């Protein structure tokens, strides 16, 4: 468990941000599911609850999701269920349990950019932007490979397009971390394939995505794209699986996801 000397519940982002950068040990609290695993000694814990960041709203052909929105909110949102073939609710549904997802937040999940993240992989195949209070708005892909810099993630925003998408994850037990996860989407012939839990951070498989965009998602192409993804990405070994198995899984899951997208688009 972490401990903290002070607690701040700021009413403005400026105040939150200034406090955050004023001392190294000052920390933003998300749902704390992850933070509590560590033993961090915080100077000031910064709670964003009073900044109105719990929302999923539609604006200007985009969906905005506030940083304090929970994973369960994503799962049960009718808007998200009917967008992108229900990609996001499907991506988060196996994360531990309902009670857990009622606590863990979008901000904490996206900001920490964990390798195993289901949400990150899914978001990578959407038109997703991340808004940081200090760093401004940027595409998720850029944020995802960036370094950790102290900032406050205020929201993410998704282009509400007619994209078809599919999500596949392989887990040793149903509510365990992914051994590997894959998201695939297709919009007007543009394909995107992302692979996470390699176990490194999720990445877009550029070659596979390009190939599909040029050749289409027919069955033989699905297999070829799967091979490309397996070849272009790096995989590692951890407690849950070896690199070799992950590479093999990548090929299977990409193929399955592409086939699924093809069927629903």
């Amino acid at each position, binding site marked *: *468990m*972490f*401990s*903290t*000397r*002070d*607690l701040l519940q700021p009413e403005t982002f400026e105040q939150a941000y200034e406090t955050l950068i004023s001392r190294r040990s000052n920390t933003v*609290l998300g*749902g*704390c*599911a992850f933070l*509590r*695993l560590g033993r961090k000694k*915080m100077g000031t*814990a910064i*709670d964003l*609850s009073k900044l109105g960041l719990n929302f999923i709203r539609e604006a200007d052909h985009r969906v905005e999701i506030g940083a304090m929105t929970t994973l*369960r909110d994503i799962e049960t949102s009718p808007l998200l269920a009917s967008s992108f073939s229900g990609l996001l609710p499907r991506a988060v*549904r*196996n994360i*531990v*349990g*309902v*009670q*857990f997802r*009622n*606590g863990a937040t979008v901000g904490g999940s996206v900001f920490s950019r964990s390798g195993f993240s289901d949400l990150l992989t899914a978001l990578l195949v959407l038109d997703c932007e991340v808004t940081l209070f200090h760093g401004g708005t940027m595409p998720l892909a850029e944020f995802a490979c960036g370094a950790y810099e102290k900032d406050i993630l205020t929201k993410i925003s998704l282009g509400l397009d007619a994209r078809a998408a599919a999500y596949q994850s392989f887990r040793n037990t*149903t*509510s365990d971390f992914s051994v590997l996860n894959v998201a695939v989407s297709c919009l007007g012939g543009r394909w995107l394939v992302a692979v996470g839990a390699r176990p490194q951070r999720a990445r877009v498989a550029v070659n596979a995505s390009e190939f599909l965009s040029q050749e289409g998602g027919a069955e033989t192409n699905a297999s070829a794209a799967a091979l490309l993804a397996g070849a272009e990405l790096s995989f590692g070994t951890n407690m849950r699986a070896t690199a070799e198995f992950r590479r093999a899984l990548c090929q299977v899951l990409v193929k399955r996801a592409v086939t699924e997208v093809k069927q629903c688009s």
Partner: protein
Amino acid sequence: MLINAVVNGKKVSWEVAKDEMLADTLRNHGLLSVRTGCDTGNCGICTVWVEGKPVLSCSTLSFRVDGKSVTTLEGVSKEAAKFAEILTAEGAEQCGFCSPGLIMNVLALARELKTCGDEEINHYLAGNLCRCTGYMGQLRAVKKYLGVDGR
């Protein structure tokens, strides 16, 4: 710091530490149905409701329930007893350590789920681990309680 909350229908003002978790606060105030079984958020034994939603009290900072309602098993004892009667008639409680968390989530499920097939029930309750029963008896009891035959 002082928090004001409605716990099991009663207004309370409690002094809590800034980094105190709700599970500890509730236990310290005599709500002993609230127990913990892990340090990582995996077991669901500590499940209580905040604003009617099931959450892990082991991972919820106490100050965050300021101005909110909190419900533990003690606060829904009538409904809990109804389910517990079915559970015990099924012989599906063993050591009982996981029961309070399970019941809180079953009652939440009953309110929230629209379709209650075996899969939906098992998925909703996936965050409630039990090492004794093997889950089958719990499933039978939940189905009886909901008045569904599952599939």
